């Protein structure tokens, strides 16, 4: 299936994002009879952006279905089919049009498992290009990561490169929950090195785990989708000036991998979030809010060395810790004693040489 791109010869081992998604869907269609694809132009036209090229020829009308231009209708049909036991992939030509169908995605798909007390699952994938394209104006350029990332019951992934695209679409299809896959139109034609493990038919990327694309020590840069590429380019430029950026590719918007981000921020003390969505109430706003609240308890337990550098704790959380008074902040003694004393270093305190900002 790697040869499906056909027209342009690529160096061996390089696959475009488009072909990676195509491969992923093809493998899952082959693996499970219940998987099918529906959307506008997905069958006879080979996909509006040619992502589903060759699939209709291979699987036929039953499993690759062209729909009329009725997003609310066909999204609802896809959700109903998922409720009845099939595993649909519902393609939106872009996620801007998913707004027509957003009631079906949120109210019919995302909330149902909870409201039914665990009786009715909805194993559906909504996929399509998200975010800005080249000059398509405001109505066709919105990024929906923040909107969908807001809702419990939904999983939201945002692949950047080919490896992400294939691994995440396969994980999404195999997941028994509604998953929104936010692709990017401008990335479809971009080729990437495909690692050997990605050739496997069981190559999956776990949903909920971020990847550190580039190790660094001075600043953490967190991003998802196409901006990850921009961050890596910026990191290369900064590296020449002696600033080493740690670039994190979120891969999943919901459930968000805060542990990876927190561990990185504890190492570098600096954080920049980069995204294609609007800043107010956005993905970056959520990451900043969580970092500002303080590190998670789990991280305190795991990274005992870093516990000494509690500059990340703001005054309120320090007060709470004092009230609990369970932790004795000494890296060596951490696991051995839990005394009522807590030695915490406030920002700007002279007890340690750490600095907050």
């Amino acid at each position, binding site marked *: 299936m790697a040869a499906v791109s056909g027209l342009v010869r690529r160096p061996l081992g390089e696959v475009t994002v488009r072909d990676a998604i195509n491969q992923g869907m093809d493998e899952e269609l082959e693996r499970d009879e219940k998987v*099918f694809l529906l959307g506008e132009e997905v069958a006879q036209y080979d996909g509006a952006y040619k992502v589903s090229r060759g699939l209709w020829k291979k699987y036929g009308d*039953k499993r690759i*279905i062209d*729909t*009329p231009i*009725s997003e*609310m*209708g*066909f*999204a*609802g*049909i*896809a*959700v*109903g*089919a*998922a*409720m*009845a*036991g*099939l595993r649909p992939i519902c393609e939106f030509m872009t996620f801007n049009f998913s707004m027509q169908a957003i*009631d*079906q995605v949120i*109210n*019919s798909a995302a909330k*149902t*498992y*909870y*409201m*039914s*007390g*665990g*009786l*009715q*699952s909805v*194993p559906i994938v909504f996929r399509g290009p998200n975010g800005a394209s080249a000059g398509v104006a405001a109505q066709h350029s919105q990024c929906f990561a923040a909107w969908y990332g807001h809702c*419990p*019951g939904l*999983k939201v992934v945002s692949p950047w490169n080919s490896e992400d695209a294939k691994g995440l679409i396969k994980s999404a299809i195999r*997941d*028994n*929950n509604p998953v929104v896959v936010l692709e990017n139109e401008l990335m479809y034609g971009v080729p990437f090195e495909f690692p050997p493990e990605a050739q496997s038919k069981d190559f999956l990327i776990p949903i909920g785990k971020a990847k550190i694309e580039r190790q660094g020590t001075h600043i953490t840069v967190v991003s998802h989708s196409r901006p990850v590429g921009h961050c890596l380019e910026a990191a290369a430029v900064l590296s020449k000036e002696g600033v080493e950026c740690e670039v994190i590719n979120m891969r999943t918007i919901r*459930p968000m991998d805060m542990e990876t981000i927190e561990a990185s921020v504890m190492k570098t003390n600096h954080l920049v979030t980069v995204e294609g969505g609007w800043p107010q109430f956005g993905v970056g706003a959520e990451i900043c809010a*969580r970092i500002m*609240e*303080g590190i998670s308890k789990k991280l305190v337990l795991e990274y005992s060395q870093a516990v000494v550098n509690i500059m990340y704790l703001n005054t309120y959380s320090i007060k*709470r810790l004092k009230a609990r008074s369970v932790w004795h902040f000494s890296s060596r003694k951490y696991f051995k004693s839990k005394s009522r004393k807590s030695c915490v270093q406030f920002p700007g305190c002279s007890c340690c040489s750490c600095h907050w900002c």
Partner: protein
Amino acid sequence: MRKMLAAVSRVLSGASQKPASRVLVASRNFANDATFEIKKCDLHRLEEGPPVTTVLTREDGLKYYRMMQTVRRMELKADQLYKQKIIRGFCHLCDGQEACCVGLEAGINPTDHLITAYRAHGFTFTRGLSVREILAELTGRKGGCAKGKGGSMHMYAKNFYGGNGIVGAQVPLGAGIALACKYNGKDEVCLTLYGDGAANQGQIFEAYNMAALWKLPCIFICENNRYGMGTSVERAAASTDYYKRGDFIPGLRVDGMDILCVREATKFAAAYCRSGKLDTSSLHACSCVGINYRTREEIQEVRSKSDPIMLLKDRMVNSNLASVEELKEIDVEVRKEIEDAAQFATADPEPPLEELGYHIYSSDPPFEVRGANQWIKFKSVS
């Protein structure tokens, strides 16, 4: 003394009467079945409609009577509990519309599928859940069918997909279930219900289009109770011939207060779908229920003339399929069942707070969910 004697004699004669009447019932010969004439359905794009006569067996008659009476009592009990504020939130009742839920169930197989909107308690019962589970779900207790997390509008059972809160959203879902029926090739149909209010939703027409295009085994059923929320149909719909609004989809106008009419129409539509002759069809059942938007006179008129339970009862008694006493016994049994269920629904504890975060994701390992602030965590189990 005389009064006391009179009272005693009354009691004694009363006590002896019951066994006598029971003996009377047992020894009386009932007919096994009877033929009834039913109203002819108006047709849209159909040459023939459902039959105008139908046979009702004694067994079926008693079964339908019991089911309708159970739904009626359950809804009235829910009404009572709602007024006592034991049920809160939404509580959309279908007392008066029992012929629809029982009649539809009588026309399909348990392996067929059904989805409806929020006036779902009757269908939840006819699709197989017990009154206990339904009332406990209404009162939000852990013994409810959705563990108290769904409430009135989100009850699910095998081959029953709710219970949907958003007006009209269930119609494309129903078409999707029909797609799955066709995909699986199992000769099943999906009954997709909506109200006269929802009939004006755009997504319904999108669903009609795709169902007809792809020949899905879907029966679209409009339960017309003449009011969409609070607005009467004349003020909401340019065309109140809902059975014709599927346009290219054949339709029937059915008397929704007559259970036999509903049953025959459903059988007819399901057979049509299964045979492949016609792949979707649209039923439109008129029924009358609802308070608040209607005048007292309107309500009294409907109650006295079109009560589906009375209609069935009169038919059965007049055709010697059952006796009044027998049906009264069923009433008593049903009342007791509902009382017990209401007792359970009131006494059962609410779901524990620890389970607040459960059932967010399906088939996932347990994880932690953030509560009202960063230090409150709930465990989430699939």
